[in-house]
């Protein structure tokens, strides 16, 4: 039985003094962007203090942000999704070349320099390069595909838009809409792309391109979307089981045995569910074999391109109301959740059960299918255990977001490697937490 402790570290300075919705760490640099009010504040994770502010871009609240991944060194690009129905494309303009200092290599070579470089970084500033318009109402979420090729935005208008930057140079912005996905029956609360891991790339290549998008909605469902061989984006699965709004989706960042990543969904019904793609004998996706080539038939009618996703676990129940955010660590495999009750909870998957439960492709089927249930109620024993909880993590306030991120501050003994949790609350505080787990 493992035991765990969550210890409060510092809050990031300054406090924002208004509701903050979300804090997203940069994929490899020591930066974290927090959406609050109509602005975004970027904090340095080296100094745990202000890096820069993105202001005067939106007429209503910024609800979500996304860092563009895989950029050349010295480039930063942030997308802001706003209640004003638009998404903003922001690029960091260096004051001069000497602040070309944000490459991860540089930082890992000499972490102490990160702090002094803060000053030169402040010489630069954010340019509001482009407004992405098209949604009819509030944008609630935005996310980049792992390669950075696609941006997905989702809205209260029930649609998901997929955008592609087709500009020839990275510094230019020429975005076009490549798909509008309309099947949700309520607000689309969040979107997330499946990470680029071997498990993703081994499966489903016969019928779809590699990118897989998941969405969560006010209609109580989550959906899985893929691009078929005709270049059409189609819904390949509807994940039903939650009894309230699905606030978000979180992919498994590092699956074992090269399995296809699993998906967590979390909801206003207070539960967190684990979903697994049913894979066939040869590791391929039986569930997605088209019975016929249906060229020419509208995508909404291609029902045969289905994937079978099963709810294979429900995490131990902690939250009695809305679960607003869940984060899954690539490093430790630990899951943390938070919500309107202001509680932070930490869960661990039973490693004994994992091998049993999720055999590598090729050995599975009977066991896996007997434990799962298509209606979304999980069968089988307890596969996840609750390690610990922190009540009132932001005092009496609701917590809107939680994320794992790397520690880069002076207090860490393994800078750039050690992980911490960061929570973002209605009190405008962005709080970091150290997690200690002892397995005995």
């Amino acid at each position, binding site marked *: 039985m493992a035991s765990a402790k969550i210890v409060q570290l510092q809050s990031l300075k300054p406090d924002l003094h208004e509701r903050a919705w979300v804090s997203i760490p940069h994929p490899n640099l020591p930066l974290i962007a927090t959406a609050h009010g109509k602005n975004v504040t970027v904090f340095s994770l080296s100094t745990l203090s202000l890096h820069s502010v993105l202001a005067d871009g939106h007429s209503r609240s910024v609800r979500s942000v996304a860092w563009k991944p895989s950029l050349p060194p010295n480039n930063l690009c942030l997308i802001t999704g706003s*209640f004003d129905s638009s998404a903003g494309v922001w690029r960091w303009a260096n004051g001069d070349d000497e602040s070309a200092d944000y490459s991860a290599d540089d930082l890992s070579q000499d972490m102490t320099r990160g702090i002094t470089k803060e000053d030169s970084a402040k010489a630069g500033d954010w340019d509001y390069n482009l407004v992405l318009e098209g949604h009819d109402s509030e944008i609630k979420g935005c996310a980049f595909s792992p390669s950075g090729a696609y941006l997905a935005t989702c809205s209260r208008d029930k649609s998901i838009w997929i955008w592609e930057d087709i500009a020839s140079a990275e510094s230019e912005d020429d975005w076009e809409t490549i798909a509008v996905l309309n099947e949700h029956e309520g607000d689309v*609360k969040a979107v997330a792309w499946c990470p680029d891991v071997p498990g993703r790339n081994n499966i489903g290549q016969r019928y779809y391109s590699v990118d897989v998008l998941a969405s969560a909605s006010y209609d109580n469902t989550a959906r899985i979307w893929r691009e078929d061989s005709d270049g059409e984006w189609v819904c390949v699965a509807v994940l039903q089981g939650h009894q309230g709004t699905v606030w978000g989706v979180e992919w498994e960042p590092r699956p074992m045995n090269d399995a296809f990543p699993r998906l967590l969904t979390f909801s206003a019904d207070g539960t967190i569910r684990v979903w697994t793609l049913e894979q066939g004998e040869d590791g391929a996706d039986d569930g997605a074999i088209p019975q016929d080539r249906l060229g020419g038939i509208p995508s909404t009618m291609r029902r045969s391109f289905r994937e079978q996703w099963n709810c294979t676990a429900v995490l131990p129940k902690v939250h009695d109301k809305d679960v607003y955010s869940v984060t899954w660590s690539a490093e430790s495999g630990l899951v943390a959740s938070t919500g*309107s009750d202001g509680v932070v909870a930490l869960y661990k998957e039973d490693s004994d059960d994992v091998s049993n439960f999720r055999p590598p492709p090729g050995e599975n089927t009977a066991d896996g299918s007997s434990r799962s249930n298509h209606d979304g109620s999980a069968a089988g024993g307890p596969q996840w255990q609750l390690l610990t909880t922190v009540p009132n993590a932001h*005092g*009496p306030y609701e917590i809107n977001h939680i994320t794992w991120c790397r520690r880069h501050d002076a207090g860490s003994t393994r800078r750039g490697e050690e992980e911490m949790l960061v929570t973002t609350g209605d009190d405008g505080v962005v709080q970091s937490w150290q997690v200690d787990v002892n397995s005995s």
Partner: protein
Amino acid sequence: MAAAALDNANPTILSASQLPTRQKRSAPRNGPDCRYSDLIFAKPSYMSRPFLQDDDIRYQDDTATADDLSAEPIDEQEIYDLISSITDPEHPVSLGQLSVINLPDIHITPSPALGVPSPNTIVQVTVELTPTVTHCSLATVLGLGVRVRLEQVLPPNYRVEVICKENSHSQDDQVNKQLSDKERVAAALENDSLRSVLDKMLESCLEN
């Protein structure tokens, strides 16, 4: 709101004296029977001694009152007083007078009878609305007004839930779901036209 568009053109309206109050408030006495009150109830002369400032007396009185307040948990009547004075968006009368808000339909957990909750104890306040007619399209706006009013004045450990009383409204599930969606509520408050309707509804609360 155009008169022709009224959802309920002829609602039942209670008079102020029929509404629940904490105690019978005696009307201010200004009639002939209190002509000599100033003399009778005048401050005794010993309190006018130069070293005893008026301020001191007031200060002592204030602390006594403040203690009383902090020692008393927020109860259903207090919630009622906060929201029953909200003005209906269609009629120039309060939600209390329209019986949209009713004292027995306000629930607090943990119960205020258990004493003052600690500042970190999450207190659930549930207000059941009774819209004036079953198809009232304004139920969402009413609910939003109640939620906003309470969130403005209650301490941060109070969670407000506003729901339509069961069977009182033909789409109550939809209304309830909207009203409990924090993101939708936040976005609605940034909608200028809705905001001005809400401000007008809440104006009457601020007068007292």
